[in-house]
C-alpha cells in the first residue's frame, strides 16, 4: 500500500486533499452556527446607536439556535452551543445566564419536537420560537424587577417579542439560502 503511494504521487496528493476537504467540511458543519452566534453577538454589541439593537441581538441569537437545532441538529452540537453561549453572555446586556438558559431550552425543545414539527410546518415552529423569546423576555423582566425592587413597564417585552417574531422569517429564509449554498459547495 505504501509502495503504491510512493509510485503514484498524484493519487496520494488527491487523497490527502480530499481528506483535508472532508475535515474542513466536517469542522464547518460542526462550528458554523456557533461562530455565527458569536459574530452576531459581537457585532450587535458595538455601539452603533441603532434602536432596538440589543433586542435584535437576543432575537437573532435565539433564532439561530432554533433554526439550526430544528432543521440541521448535526450542525449545532450541544457542547458547541454551550461554549458559544458562554461567549455570547459576555456581550449581552441581559442578566447573566438568562440568554444561555433560553438557548439551551430552545435546543431542547427543537430536539424533542423535531419530528412532529417537521410534519406540522413552518407556522408552528414560528409560534414556538415566539414562545421561547417570550419566556426569555419575561425572565429578564422578572430579574430586573427584583434588581430594581419596583414595577417596570411591560412594553419592552412586547417590543422584544414583536421584533423577534417579525425578524424570524427573514432569518429563516437567509439560513435556508445559506444552507443550500453550503450543501451545494460541499457536494462539489
Amino acid at each position, binding site marked *: 500500500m505504501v509502495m503504491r503511494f510512493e509510485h503514484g504521487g498524484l493519487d496520494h496528493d488527491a487523497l490527502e486533499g480530499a481528506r483535508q476537504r472532508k475535515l474542513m467540511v466536517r469542522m464547518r458543519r460542526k462550528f458554523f452556527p456557533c461562530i455565527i452566534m458569536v459574530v452576531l453577538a459581537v457585532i450587535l454589541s*458595538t455601539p452603533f446607536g441603532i434602536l432596538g439593537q440589543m433586542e435584535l441581538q437576543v432575537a437573532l441569537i435565539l433564532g439561530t439556535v432554533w433554526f439550526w437545532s430544528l432543521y440541521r441538529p448535526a450542525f449545532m452540537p450541544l457542547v458547541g452551543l454551550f461554549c458559544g453561549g458562554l461567549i455570547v453572555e459576555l456581550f449581552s*446586556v441581559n442578566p447573566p445566564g438568562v440568554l444561555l*438558559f433560553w438557548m439551551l431550552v430552545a435546543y431542547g425543545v427543537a430536539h424533542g419536537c423535531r419530528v412532529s414539527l417537521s410534519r406540522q410546518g413552518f407556522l408552528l415552529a414560528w409560534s414556538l420560537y415566539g414562545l421561547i423569546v417570550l419566556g426569555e423576555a419575561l425572565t429578564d423582566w422578572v430579574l*430586573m424587577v427584583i434588581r430594581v425592587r419596583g414595577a417596570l413597564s411591560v412594553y419592552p417585552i412586547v417590543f422584544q417579542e414583536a421584533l423577534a417574531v417579525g425578524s424570524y422569517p427573514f432569518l429563516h429564509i437567509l439560513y435556508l439560502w445559506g444552507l443550500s449554498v453550503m450543501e451545494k459547495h460541499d457536494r462539489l
Partner: protein
Amino acid sequence: MISIHTRQLLSGLVLPVFVFLAVGIILTGQIWPDRMAQLRMGAVRDVGPVYQALLFPQRQFHKWQLTLQGVGDLLAENARLRKENRKLIYWYGEAQTLKQENTRLKSVLHWGAEGARDYVSGWVVRDETGPYLRAVLLDVGGHHVTVGSLAVDEVGLVGRVSEVGPHVVRVLLIEDAASRIPVTLQNSGGDAMMIGDNTLYPRLMYYNQNIHPEEGEHLVTRAQTAGLTGGIAVGRVHYLAPGQPVVVPDAALEHLDLVRIFDGDFMPEGPVSSGRVREKPPLLPEQHDGNTPSTWQSLRRFLPFTSLQNG
C-alpha cells in the same frame, strides 16, 4: 469500555447538566452582579479594537455627512457663526468682569483655594442600553476612577460610574431605573431626587412640598460628602402632567461618544476656607488607648465645612 447504553444515558444527561449550569450562572449573576459585570467589562476591553474597527465606517460617514452639510450651507453657516461670535465676545467680557469680582470677593472672605477638578475623558466602547438597562462602557485607559464618580458629556450630566474594571468603567445613565441622583433646584435652592425609570425623562421626586419645582427651572447636582460632585448641569424641569415633574436632560444621552468622568469629591459649594472657623466640635470621642486620631482624621468628616488650619 463504556457500553452503548451507558453512552446514551450520559449523552442524555449533558443537556440537563448544562441547563443546571446556566441556572447556576443566573443565580451567581443575581448574588454577585459585580463579578459578572467585571467579566463583561474584561471582554469589552479585549474586543475594544474590534469595536473601533466596526465603528470606523459609521464615524467616517458621519464626518462626511457633516462636511457635506457644511459645504451645502456655507453662507448661512458663516452668517450664523459671525452672529454667535459677537455674542461670545460679549459674554467673554461679562465672564472676565465676573471672574475679577469673584476673586475680589473671595479675597475679602479669605476664601481658600478650591480643589482641582480631576477628570478623565473616555470613548464609549459599548452601549449597554437594553430593554431594562441604560448604561455605557467607557475606555479610560489606566486612569484610576472611583465608583460613584459623575460622568458628563460636553453639555450635562450623563450618569454615575457603577462598576470599575481594568481600563473600562461602566456608567449607569440617569435614565436607568436604578439611577438615583440628588439634585438642587437652581431658582429655589431646594433639594430633590432625580429618579430614572427607563424612559427618556427621569422623574423628579422628594422635593419640598412647599417649594414646587418651576417649569423650565434648571437643575444641578447636589454636592454630598459621599463623593458626589456638585454643581454639574443636569437638565430642566418639565411637567408631563400636573404634579408630575420630570427632568429633560441637558446631555445627549441617545448618542454618546466622548464622556468625561469627574473623579474625586470636588464640591464647588463650601470649599476649605482658611478664614473660617469650625462650626461644630469634633464628634469623635477621645481615645485613651494612646492611638489618638490625627487632626486630619478627626476633621475629615466635617470637610469641607471645617478649616484644617483652625481646627
